[in-house]
């Protein structure tokens, strides 16, 4: 069953309007936080809820917040990550368009928990409308006194700003995002130091995905136990999955973690259309091991009319294009891989190419500054393992085993 917690009001007309949001209990969690809770109590509650990051890496959210030093006099920053550029992922956009105040409220509570007075929401540049709706929500929140100075008479100050990006996937990676927000090229930083210690302007900073942040007011309102009662032992709560590709009913579905993938694909998604069978699934999430279900929540379904070399060509093209170029294995490796795989797909592959691809992959894996390099490699390795004969077929027969000829209607 779908478990609509984040999505409870997603189809409610004008949920983006602060008055409607308020009529659904909006900003009660923020008021409760400010008036009745200490930052430590908020962090504790989030820790107990078991909430983990929804941006890909799945890091425990409360724990991340607790890394921010308490004895540091520097300003602290809270950043909502809405760069959403992982192929197959489009859940943050839905939240921003239909329930932006949930994100604003979650960002406010998170900022309070780490003692931050300035929050930024980094929205990918192409998302003009979602960014506009976030800006509008923030304006409304200021007007009602939920943001700004002396919020609700508690003396707490918090400013919030939407910052739009420039069309680079890498800027979703948190340290590249920080550089981008500082007005530099969006290149990843070496860690340590971690952003919690030296982030934006070298000040303590927490970066959270906006879906993670949207869950925070719900946890404050309903309690950690309520949240932890959903999901599995290891992965608590709910998560939004973006179901796309060869599927009858594509869309964003919120599920309790631990729900079988087959339920999402067959029961909710209606399975593969046009009488074809499923050949493969690409789960999304650069920072997670390939094949694991969580990640960023992308589930891309591929039917049996699809050439896997063609699929991999698309993906490596993407990663090569998005490599920020900072480290050699990723910059050079993705370029080589793209050349080799393109050649293969064109029927010009040569004996030994697959071994060459294997070895380039090995040389990238684990040797890069940020996980983009690994992300580029993992689908290739996985496809070479599961569909090796299809790759070999391209070399032996100079063409595809199955032709991916998809025509839009």
């Amino acid at each position, binding site marked *: 069953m779908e478990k609509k917690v984040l999505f409870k009001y997603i189809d409610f007309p004008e949920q983006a309007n602060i008055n409607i949001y308020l009529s659904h209990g909006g900003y009660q969690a923020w008021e409760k936080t400010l008036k009745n809770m200490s930052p430590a109590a908020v962090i504790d509650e989030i820790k107990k809820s078991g909430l983990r990051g929804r941006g890909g890496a799945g890091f425990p959210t409360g724990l991340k917040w607790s890394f921010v030093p308490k004895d540091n006099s520097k*300003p602290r920053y809270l950043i909502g990550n809405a760069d*959403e*550029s*992982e*192929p*197959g*992922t*489009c859940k*943050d*956009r839905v939240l921003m368009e239909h329930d932006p105040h949930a994100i604003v409220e979650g960002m406010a509570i998170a900022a309070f928990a780490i003692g931050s007075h*300035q929050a930024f929401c980094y929205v*990918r*540049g*192409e*998302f*003009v*409308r979602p960014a*506009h709706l976030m800006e509008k929500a923030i304006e409304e929140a200021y007007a009602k006194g939920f943001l700004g100075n002396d919020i609700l008479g508690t003396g707490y100050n918090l*400013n919030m*700003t939407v*910052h*739009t*990006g*420039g*069309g*680079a*996937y890498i800027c979703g990676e948190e340290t590249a995002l920080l550089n*981008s*927000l*500082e*007005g*530099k*090229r*969006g290149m990843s930083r070496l860690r340590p130091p971690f952003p919690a210690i030296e982030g934006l*302007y070298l000040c303590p900073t927490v970066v959270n995905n906006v879906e993670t942040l949207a869950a925070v007011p719900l946890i404050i309102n309903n309690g950690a136990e309520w949240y932890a009662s959903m999901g599995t032992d290891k992965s608590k709560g709910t998560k939004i999955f*973006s*179901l*796309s*590709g*060869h599927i009858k009913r*594509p*869309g*964003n579905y919120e599920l309790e973690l631990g729900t079988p993938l087959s339920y999402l694909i067959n029961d909710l998604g209606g399975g593969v259309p046009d009488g074809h069978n499923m050949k493969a699934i*690409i789960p999304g999430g650069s920072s997670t091991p390939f094949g694991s279900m969580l990640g960023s929540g*992308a589930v*891309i379904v*591929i039917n049996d009319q*699809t050439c896997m070399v063609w*699929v991999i060509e*698309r*993906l490596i093209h*993407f990663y090569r*294009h*998005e490599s920020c170029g900072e480290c050699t294995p990723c910059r050079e490796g993705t370029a080589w891989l793209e050349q080799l795989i393109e050649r293969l797909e064109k029927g010009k592959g040569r004996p030994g190419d697959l071994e060459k691809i294997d070895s380039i992959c090995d040389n990238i894996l684990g040797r890069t500054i940020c996980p983009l390099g690994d992300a580029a490699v993992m689908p290739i390795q996985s496809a070479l393992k599961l569909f090796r004969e299809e790759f070999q077929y391209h070399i032996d027969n100079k063409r595809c085993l199955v032709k*991916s000829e*998809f*025509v*839009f*209607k």
Partner: protein
Amino acid sequence: MILNDISIAKIRQKMICYTVRKSAILPALTVACRQVGHLNNEIYREISVILEIPYLEVAEAASFYTMFPKKPVGRHLIQVCHNISCALLGADSLISYLEEKLGIKKGETSPDNLFTLISVECLGSCTSAPMIQIDDKYYELLTREKIDRILDDLKESSLNGKESSF
């Protein structure tokens, strides 16, 4: 000056959101690109004057971000997502269809300077594939019929001098 008063005012408004002026580069580039349609060295220079930071810092940042065209484009920039979810639902044939309808190849601008056609990576609308972005707006779950209508509407509105907004 290329940037008009409205853009300059918008950039100044953005500036006050940041304690470090350099952070306003990306917002400033966004404002400039929305006005002009593309970016160039002269625009970087003007932004560097407004933000009071070195020209090179603006130019360097701008060069990294592919979303901003660095050469003039047609009145409407059509960006087709060719990434995997869209490709599985016919993005390549969608590009061919647009090429045919506009009489240009990917990467080109139509002779009437109305449309530039390019293909881009995932736009975060994968569950509504295939999709395109024209200027600021997303067009999703596309069919031939929808494309025909969208192009007709844009041609008509540019004849009337009316601009679409999201």
